[in-house]
């Protein structure tokens, strides 16, 4: 597909990288020639210099023939304007990044008039992800499927865990028949494990289970379970704004520290029930005086990754049970252990996933196309959601199907209940399937997980 991306910032570049590696033709538009000059050296993309909201520039970037335009420039207004222009030029699909909370409602209201196929808000997505983690603090990462009914959760095995030393074929006795270990991360390596795989301490495992089973799962695994009543947010960014709204609604005490007085005043007016503190959170004494050790959760949301890492590490050091770190860039995230910095949230990654899902579904508007996509285990594997449509593989026992290596049907949601498929289970029309694959294959429809001839 031909895709034009406007804005060569972090999100724009990450999208260009992902989509170009999936084989699409990418043209990146940016006003700043310095951003563009080095781009073709590292990515197989073409670049056009200019204001992405100008018709002339969009034309020369071939938007008229493009299948999709993704607007990720800095200003929301420019993105919206670019999308309107692109639609007029005949580009059938447009995606805009719109970040200002004040526009969120408007966008739902005006989506059709503006010609937007999708609007993405990385900060809102990040806030939602953080909120989901706060709900179940035992997990490092939590992705939901099928409107939140099915969950994929990640947690690290401590040395004393009941699972350590167990073979995968034996664990169902511990985690129950309605949960499945679908990916294991050990050091730099990721496994989509078979029955003979033996778990070890420090493995990070990803488990799929129904939402209603999560509490039971935590109990069976003897994970630390502590409800979060108070949250300390470092940095009053937009993510903090979205998150505070959610947290206050569910009755959690929120304390926000920001070093900008104006921002503090704004937040205190918007959230009279939250405690807004003006000060430099990078000062140890200040954090101590604000009682960092006594909070249930610390979330670092400042604009500097380094600051977030240091404060998170300090929070873990003083014994805060749940720490969540926001990072803008994740190239070096594997250098940090989760036990030091807690859960990692990357708004860029979330946006890229959402758009990648949209693009893959677009490339394949036929039946069985992709409903959701999450990157799991440090981006090394993907979890995908599909609806089963009439096809060759329907009604055949799974043991009789030719599934490609490194692919796993993790679970099937059928008639309001979760099935962990065994060899003699069948896929039926209308089933919702969650599939886990290694990230180096592009899967955009259910057919892709089977070999050319799906039947043995």
């Amino acid at each position: 597909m031909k895709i034009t991306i406007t804005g060569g910032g972090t999100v724009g570049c990450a999208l260009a990288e992902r989509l170009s590696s999936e084989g699409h033709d990418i043209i990146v538009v940016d006003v700043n020639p310095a951003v563009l000059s080095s781009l073709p050296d590292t990515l197989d993309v073409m670049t056009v210099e200019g204001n992405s909201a100008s018709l002339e520039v969009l034309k020369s970037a071939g938007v008229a023939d493009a299948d999709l335009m993704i607007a990720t420039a800095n200003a929301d207004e420019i993105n919206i304007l670019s999308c309107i222009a692109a639609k007029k030029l005949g580009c059938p699909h447009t995606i805009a990044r719109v970040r200002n909370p004040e526009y969120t409602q408007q966008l739902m209201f005006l989506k059709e008039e503006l010609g937007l196929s999708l609007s993405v808000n990385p900060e809102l997505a990040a806030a939602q992800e953080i909120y989901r983690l706060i709900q179940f603090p035992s997990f490092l990462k939590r992705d939901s499927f099928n409107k939140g009914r099915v969950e994929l959760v990640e947690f690290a095995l401590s040395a004393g865990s009941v699972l350590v030393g167990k073979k995968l074929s034996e664990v169902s006795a511990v985690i129950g028949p309605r949960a499945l270990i679908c990916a294991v991360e050990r050091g730099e390596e990721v496994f989509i494990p078979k029955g003979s795989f033996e778990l070890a301490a420090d493995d990070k495992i990803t488990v799929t289970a129904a939402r209603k089973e999560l509490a039971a799962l935590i109990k069976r695994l003897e994970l630390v379970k502590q409800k979060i009543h108070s949250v300390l947010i470092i940095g009053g960014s937009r993510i903090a704004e979205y998150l505070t709204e959610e947290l206050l609604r569910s009755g959690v005490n929120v304390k926000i520290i920001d070093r900008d007085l104006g921002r503090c005043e704004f937040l205190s007016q918007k959230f009279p029930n939250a405690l807004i503190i003006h000060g430099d959170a990078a000062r140890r004494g200040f954090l101590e005086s604000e009682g960092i050790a006594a909070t249930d959760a610390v979330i670092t949301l400042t604009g500097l990754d380094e600051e977030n890492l240091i404060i998170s590490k300090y929070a873990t050091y003083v014994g805060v049970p749940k720490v969540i770190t926001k990072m803008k860039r994740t190239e070096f995230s594997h250098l940090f252990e989760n036990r030091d910095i807690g859960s990692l949230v990357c708004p860029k990654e979330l946006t890229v996933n959402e758009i990648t899902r949209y693009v893959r579904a677009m490339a394949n508007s036929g039946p069985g196309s992709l409903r959701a996509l999450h990157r799991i285990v440090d981006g090394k594997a993907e979890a995908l959601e599909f609806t089963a449509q009439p096809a060759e593989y329907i009604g055949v026992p799974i043991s009789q199907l030719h599934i490609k290596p490194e692919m796993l049907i993790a679970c099937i949601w059928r008639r309001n209940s979760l099935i962990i498929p065994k060899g003699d289970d069948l896929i039926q029309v209308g089933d919702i399937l969650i599939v886990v694959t290694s990230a180096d294959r592009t899967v955009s429809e259910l057919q892709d997980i089977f070999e050319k001839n799906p039947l043995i």
Partner: protein
Amino acid sequence: MNTKLIGNYVGKILLILSVSMVPAFMIALFAGEETAAWSFFATIALSAAASVLLTRIRPKTKSLYSREGFVIVALSWVSLSILGALPFYLSSSIPRFVDALFETVSGFTTTGATILPEVENLPMSILYWRSFTHLLGGMGVLVFLLALAPQDGAGAPMHILRAESAGPTVGKLAPKLRRTARILYLIYIGMTLLELVVLLIGGMPFFDALTTALGTAGTGGFSIRNSSIADYSPFCQSAVAVFMFLFAINFNMYYCILLGDIRSVWKNSELRAYLLIVLIATGAITISTLTRFASVGEAIHHSFFQVSSIVSTTGFATLDYNGWPEFAHAILIILMFIGGCAGSTGGGMKVSRIVILIKSLGYEMDKLIHPHRVTSLRLDGRNIVADGTIRQIHVYFFFYFFILIISTLLLSLEGFSFKTNFSAVLACLNNIGPGMDLVGPACNYSFFSIPAKLLLILNMLIGRLEIFPILLLFAPSTWKRRS
């Protein structure tokens, strides 16, 4: 330095070489040229074996930076030249290896300078291979590889395209590098076939038409006749002149025409300058040589042919211009400097560099009068040339003259006339072929000593790859582990 990746790339290039030698081998078989067939077979086998060994190297990472890009291009060309020379040497068509190497490098770099006093009695397959090297070298063998190779991941091979293509800046025609390379090759091969058809219509024998078309496409200039193009009909000569002129135009222009974007073609500063140069040069030479021809028409015909041949850096000839007046020689020497357009198969400094250089001259003059004036240099009516590009062109200009002067100095040790030495270096560095005086169109390079030939070989490679890849190949800092 990712040496494993470099080895892998060179291996792939050798595979392309061995496959592209197969038609020559077939011709040798059908024509019953036994020694030539054996020599092709041996080279194909050797090159394929080397390719298998090299491509078995699995690079740990596929990361490729500009340093690797330059080295891949330089090493590929060197190994291509050495292996490409083997058929000439093994079949004893050219008994001395240095001569065979000279002929091959001259072919791949599309110079067209020959050391053969007598070409007409060479085996057909050898003549075909000699002309075919022009086609392979013209657009670039690595660009061909990029057109074929499946895209693995990142777009880093851009460094290769940049190192092998001609001109100050290299842009993509399509978002995917592979497609860009394919478009270039499709235009290239399409135009070559068109010329073949036109020459056949003009009544040229098939083998002559094929080798002439191959020689024109890469703007090379190897001919299978001792008299170059002189014995063919005026129609065929004119057709060759027009195609030489066309192959020295930036291929992006043809792509724009195919897309129906006539405006960009019309607005292109380089194309305008190129047309103007050809027009003025043809006019001036016509006037200065008018008395030597029977009619004005004939004068224009021969002047245009020679101008087109030199400016496109092809080097075909319809007559020996050594007898022309000095004024005409001076113009031809200026044309040798200029060369074709960027992004074409032509050599030389490239018209776009000259345009930018002259414009930057005006810009600097302006700065002397108004030291605080802020301006920018524009091309094509709107595109602003970055300061970095202007600086690179100045550096290129300096290196170009530096190499030219040093080479002329070294060649002077041979004891021939200054005009011979200077034009020989100029003809090799700009990938033209014939020079003036002793290396004029009716002569050849066989009389130079071995060191002189090696120097000229180096000049041809430096000229074709636009100086830096070959220079960096010899720079110690390229090979340092930590730098």
